[in-house]
């Protein structure tokens, strides 16, 4: 128990460290001494350009940028980001897009888990031929690019409005009334399909185990076996894939924020990213990954504990 916590915290530190190393990578292979002043001039609206720009290894520049970033993290509340020749304070401002994105993300996660569980159970409980059709549909949907699904969803919502005059949900994002339902729906489609497919696979693997035979021998009803026994065991093996699920959702969220014009954290990070203040991007990325890291850690610890208990019973 304590060793897993120790290992997890070590991982947390390492991941943070790597974020620090990855973000200023452009500084590693481009000599920025001429580039940065010219960029400032362009942002001021003056005509300026760099003529010669060659690639080279710049260890010294990279380490300088790194130390500057660490220094700015020491003074976290006053951190600044750069935009159009001016520095602005990052901190009260980043909270709003962050909270919006997290809200959408967690509601979508909840919805997609619910959807996946219901799809998975339906596939198992329906007759075999129908289940196969649903499985085929799942595989088909999974191979559609997220961009297409989101664009289609948006167009469908608008077409529905044009035909019937009923606005199902707010489509456009405004400052007073952030649209939540449409992005949540868009964000939950592909993850729920992904999760449902995993769940079905795991449940089918459970089917051949001995306890199912015992349960059948006892004369329990098949729906009862699937819902109570098989499902409960299958859901544990799907938790191994939670990282891929998270990654899928995050990259979907990224595209959704762009397509549905939501001022979420990922779009904010792209907007505020500049060579003058890479620390703002690092801070935002850390804010995104830490809550999920903790969530994963708690989940894996719970699953491991459950596994141990199951081994003891066996």
């Amino acid at each position, binding site marked *: 128990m304590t060793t897993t916590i120790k290992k997890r915290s070590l991982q947390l530190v390492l991941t943070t460290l790597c974020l620090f190393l990855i973000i200023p990578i452009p500084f590693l292979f*481009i000599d920025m001494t001429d580039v940065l002043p010219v960029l400032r001039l362009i942002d001021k609206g003056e005509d300026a350009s760099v003529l010669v720009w060659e690639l080279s290894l710049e260890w010294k520049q990279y380490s300088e940028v790194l130390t500057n970033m660490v220094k700015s993290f020491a003074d976290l509340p006053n951190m600044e980001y750069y935009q159009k020749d001016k520095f602005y304070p990052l901190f009260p401002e980043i909270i709003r897009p962050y909270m919006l994105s997290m809200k959408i993300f967690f509601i979508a996660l909840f919805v997609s888990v619910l959807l996946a569980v219901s799809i998975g159970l339906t596939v198992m409980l329906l007759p*075999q031929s129908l289940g196969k059709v649903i499985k085929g549909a799942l595989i088909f949907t999974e191979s559609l690019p997220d961009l297409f699904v989101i664009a289609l969803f*948006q167009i469908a919502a608008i077409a529905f409005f044009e035909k019937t005059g009923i606005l199902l949900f707010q489509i456009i994002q405004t400052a007073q009334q952030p649209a939540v339902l449409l992005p949540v729906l868009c964000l939950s489609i592909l993850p729920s399909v992904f999760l449902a497919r995993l769940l079905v696979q795991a449940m089918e693997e459970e*089917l051949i185990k001995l306890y199912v035979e015992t349960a059948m021998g006892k004369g329990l009803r098949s729906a009862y076996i699937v819902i109570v026994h098989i499902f409960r065991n299958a859901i544990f093996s799907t938790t191994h894939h939670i990282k891929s699920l998270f990654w899928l959702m995050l990259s979907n969220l990224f595209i959704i924020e762009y397509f549905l014009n939501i001022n979420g954290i990922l779009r904010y990070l792209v907007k505020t990213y500049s060579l003058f203040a890479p620390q703002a991007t690092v801070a935002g990325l850390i804010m995104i990954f830490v809550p*999920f890291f903790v969530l994963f850690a708690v989940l894996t610890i719970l699953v491991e504990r459950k596994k141990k208990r199951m081994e003891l019973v066996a």
Partner: protein
Amino acid sequence: MMNLIKQPFFLIGVSILALLFAVSAVYVELKPDPPEIELVVYNKEGKLMGKAPMPPSENHWLGTNQLGEDMFYKVMMGAKYTIMIALGLAMLRMVVSFIGCILLMNLPGRLRMFLVECAETFKFIPASLLAYIVLSPVIMIFFWTYTDAEYYALSIGILTMIAVPTISVALIGEVTEIKKMEFFISVKMMGGNKLHVLRKHIMPFLMPRILIMFGQQIVSSLLLLAHIGVLGLFIGGARWIKMDDLGRVKKPMLMRNEWSELVASSADYIWYAKWVLLAPLGGFVVVIFAANLMVEGMKRGLLLDHKKLKSKPIKEMNKGNETVEEKLFQLKKAE
């Protein structure tokens, strides 16, 4: 390999990709002049029918954009570049990751664990965001200072490198899995040198997995291309033209019609001329679907015959495969 060719999924996927590529390559030869730019459309009696962008019609299968250019021609022109870039990216990624995997395998255990943990970081940043962060200062700001060759080499190099850590770690996972198989004990006892073990004992098992990963990487590079298109990063190169006198509104004039650029240049069309955006997106759908079919075929053709050789007893394996369907049937019947 023979199993692969027998797989219908694999064949359909590959032939769709090859057909699209061939048609796209030949299309320009057949039609050397791009279709006429139609800003205003009249019917036969000379009555004004509308102005560009026009919705799909007989003359323009996928409609036209605001500049009056035929979208079908543009999408067909770009197909070969997109497919080529995706294939090239996937291939480069696999080659570099394979080298990375071998280097990592030969490092001392502690250091290897450390580096593997570090590579986990890439699972917490969306690839498109990472690509934007690393690519944008390089290719967006001063792109005119590069020659074309440098521009491509740089962008493709970066898009390759951001995926390498994750793939290398996945490959290491596969190799460890192979080393756990029963026959590997005897391999160790025989005491061949590392190169020999790699070549004769690991590669036969690793190769199918590498091929499958290659297919998956084609899909993920296509997705990444579509995503960075939305962010306005152009790999194929574009010239900006002013749409108003002050030059505040600029539209990209595409040089090669690569699909990610088509997506990038038409993201705001979704509100008033959705076909302009849906044309390249539809292209992506077709190609990604074909690539996914290919991967599915590879999985069926390459992995199943290896499953029998896995460390599990063959009897149990076969029993499992047969009874999944039967058990379902029995469950239904038991009720």
